[in-house]
């Protein structure tokens, strides 16, 4: 490729970021016949070939699975979420600094595939309880779409992703097109029965996860190793690397360029369109321009926001598409701080075999019929898992010698740990901005993050604590402890909201098709598009919105509207 020639640097579409939503955008655009350039700031990760730890047993891990105190001290964020088995899929703190104006942990996956390699794989549809929430409560801006607008796109992505789960006919958590569900174990079934008996409205169900329970689209069934974050050699969980990128490549329309940081979206004020992007090669520090008639930003919420803020021009002095001043505002992340755990003395004759790669879900049960006297607005779901205590839980037991060893090696009592994943409201001053003076090694302004949970989130955490504790006690658990870990924002890794969708260009950044109000050929379908956070794990919704936006964008292109 002679990249000095403008024609060789011109594509039909450019997709910035190859994580879960960028992979979808690339696949959809390629399938529709667009020559597509997929950019990622990190290295290339080839499915299977680049999963170096995937098949290692504990005694084969580098450094015996250990991390030096010095490395952990220098990379506190990276090491708080990863160990030597999967650290190569998380950006380190030393090379990739940002500024925490208040504590916010920003976990990043700087490689082709992004965080789709390490995601939690939970897939839950939103319902109109969620899409109507902002309008009902007068918080933030109303969503420009409703469930009917996205339902068939949920169907569409679920069929390709492959989600195991059970149909439950719950209005607040619509069923989807599921593969056979994973199975609850003894203690989880016991808790499920107890919860249903005490409150007919509540359910405990198996998690809905993007782990295949049977072969699908050339990918193998889950082997129940529970080592997903190392990359799956069977392709049994959905990632860009295992699923969308290979299909995009097959079309012959995809070009992937790793080691490419997008420093800005190029804008032409005569045509009122983006003309492409400027890229810094991370290895050589040389910059290049690439051109296209369509641009999709999928760099992940905070990085996409930074690109918009960096893309200033006389027309957009505050950043591309930022007439409303909302770019960078309304940062949200679910809280998953509060919950409870307990042990159960029964069922000691039962155990399990295999390592199921998911836990259970207690779908939202609070505020399903919002009233005036509620303690907090919105809701949470509870996620957790049941297991028998093993050596990790028993190593702190007092004693030595044969009796200590006998106890250490035998299964302990059943336990359940569970915590609430709760909705976070959009607050204008929970914000991503750019530093005016501090730069990274590529000369780009450092991102600054200012974020806190507020009163509504804290009240919800209190409710999660007491409800979790009560449900465990009612089911006969002993030594029940409720907790609030008081983790800062970012720790649920569901950051979203900083380029929100809305009906009105004065108060939002994107329209109902994820299109910039003011630049028609730029689309944003990562988490930054979200007008509220609901309490469901968000990736499924990003994927559905992406497929929908691609369909719209290509139709508009054909009509000559872009």
């Amino acid at each position, binding site marked *: 490729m002679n990249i000095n020639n403008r024609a060789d640097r011109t594509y039909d579409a450019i997709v910035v970021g190859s994580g879960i939503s960028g992979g979808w955008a690339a696949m959809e655009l390629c399938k529709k016949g667009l020559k597509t350039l997929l950019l990622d700031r990190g290295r290339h990760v080839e499915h299977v070939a680049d999963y170096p730890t995937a098949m290692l*047993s*504990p*005694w084969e*891990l580098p*450094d*015996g*699975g*250990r*991390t*030096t*105190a*010095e490395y952990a*001290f220098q990379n506190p964020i990276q090491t708080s979420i990863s160990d030597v088995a999967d650290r190569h899929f998380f950006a380190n703190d030393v090379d990739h600094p940002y500024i925490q104006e208040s504590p916010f942990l920003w976990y990043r996956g700087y490689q082709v595939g992004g965080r789709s390699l390490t995601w939690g794989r939970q897939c839950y549809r939103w319902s109109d309880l969620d899409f109507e929430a902002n309008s009902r409560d007068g918080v933030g801006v109303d969503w420009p779409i409703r469930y009917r607008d996205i339902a068939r796109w949920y169907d569409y992505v679920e069929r390709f992703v492959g989600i195991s789960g059970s149909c439950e006919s719950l209005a607040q958590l619509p069923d989807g097109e599921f593969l056979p569900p*994973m*199975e*609850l*174990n*003894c203690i989880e*079934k016991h808790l499920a029965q107890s919860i249903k008996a005490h409150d007919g409205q509540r359910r405990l169900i198996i998690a809905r996860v993007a782990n295949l329970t049977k072969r699908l689209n050339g990918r193998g069934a889950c*082997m*129940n*190793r*529970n080592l997903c974050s190392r990359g799956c050699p069977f392709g049994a969980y959905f990632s860009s690397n295992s699923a969308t990128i290979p299909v995009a490549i097959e079309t012959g329309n995809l070009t992937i360029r790793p080691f490419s940081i997008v420093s800005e979206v190029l804008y032409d004020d005569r045509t009122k369109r983006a003309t492409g992007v400027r890229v810094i090669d991370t290895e050589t520090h040389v910059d290049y321009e690439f051109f296209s008639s369509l641009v999709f930003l999928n760099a992940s919420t905070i990085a996409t926001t930074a690109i918009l803020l960096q893309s200033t021009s006389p027309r957009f002095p505050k950043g591309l598409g930022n007439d409303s001043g909302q770019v960078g505002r309304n940062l949200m992340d679910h809280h998953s701080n509060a919950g409870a755990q307990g042990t159960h003395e029964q069922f000691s*004759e*039962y*155990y*399990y*075999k*295999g*390592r*199921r790669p998911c836990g259970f879900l207690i779908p939202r049960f609070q505020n399903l019929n919002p009233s005036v006297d509620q303690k907090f607005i919105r809701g949470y779901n509870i996620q957790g898992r049941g*297991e*028998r205590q*093993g*050596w*990790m839980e028993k*190593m*702190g037991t*007092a*004693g*030595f*010698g*044969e009796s*200590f*060893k*006998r106890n*250490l*090696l*035998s*299964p*302990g009592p059943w336990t359940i740990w569970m915590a609430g994943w709760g909705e976070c409201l959009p607050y204008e001053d929970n914000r991503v901005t750019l530093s005016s003076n501090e730069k990274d090694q590529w000369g780009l302004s450092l991102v600054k993050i200012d974020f806190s949970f507020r009163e509504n989130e804290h009240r919800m955490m209190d409710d999660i604590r007491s409800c979790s504790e009560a449900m465990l006690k009612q089911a006969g658990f002993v030594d029940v402890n409720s907790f609030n870990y008081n983790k800062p924002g970012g720790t649920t890794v569901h950051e979203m909201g900083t380029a929100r969708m809305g009906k009105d260009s004065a108060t939002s950044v994107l329209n109902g098709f994820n299109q910039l109000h003011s630049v028609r050929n730029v689309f944003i379908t990562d988490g930054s598009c979200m007008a509220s956070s609901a309490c469901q794990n968000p990736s499924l919704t990003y994927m559905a919105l992406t497929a929908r936006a691609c369909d719209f964008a290509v139709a508009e292109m054909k009509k000559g509207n872009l």
Partner: protein
Amino acid sequence: MKRRSYLKGVFGLGTAFILSPVACDTKGDELTPIEMERLIAAMADSILPETDTPGAIQAGVPTFITETWQHYLSEKNKEAFLNGLIRTESYSRDSYSRSFSQCPMDVRINILTYLESKETYRFAILNKIRNRFFGPSFIGLFKQLTVQGYCTSHAGATKALRYDAVPGHYESCVLMAENTRSWATK
């Protein structure tokens, strides 16, 4: 303190050294690197002795502990670990007139039980606060390293625990035979 740093620096290189009585609050005990190795092995062996399954020594735990101490702990914990070893050896010599590694198993267990009870508060919250501000207690840390080294070793995971690299299926509720051992990984 200078002598301490020197000692830490030479440990593992096979150079004999003498512990300063001032540094370790004892009455002039001598501890060579070989003796240090023996102490670590004897402690690990007293936590997880050989039974019908391999013990800590067969599983290579002493090397795991020494490596962790030398290369993975923070400076603060490294120092605390050295002090803990010295305390353990001194207590053994003072109370039983012999090196910890020379004591029979029941005496070693008495020593460790005594030291563990001394460093454990009755209330969990106090232990948590202690861990946070002063780092983990020595016996607690030593035990943690022993268990971790053992359960992630080939011998520990496959001969003492049960290791299933590729389960294939998940069986959610299995009736358990008596004396079933735990899974090595979760």
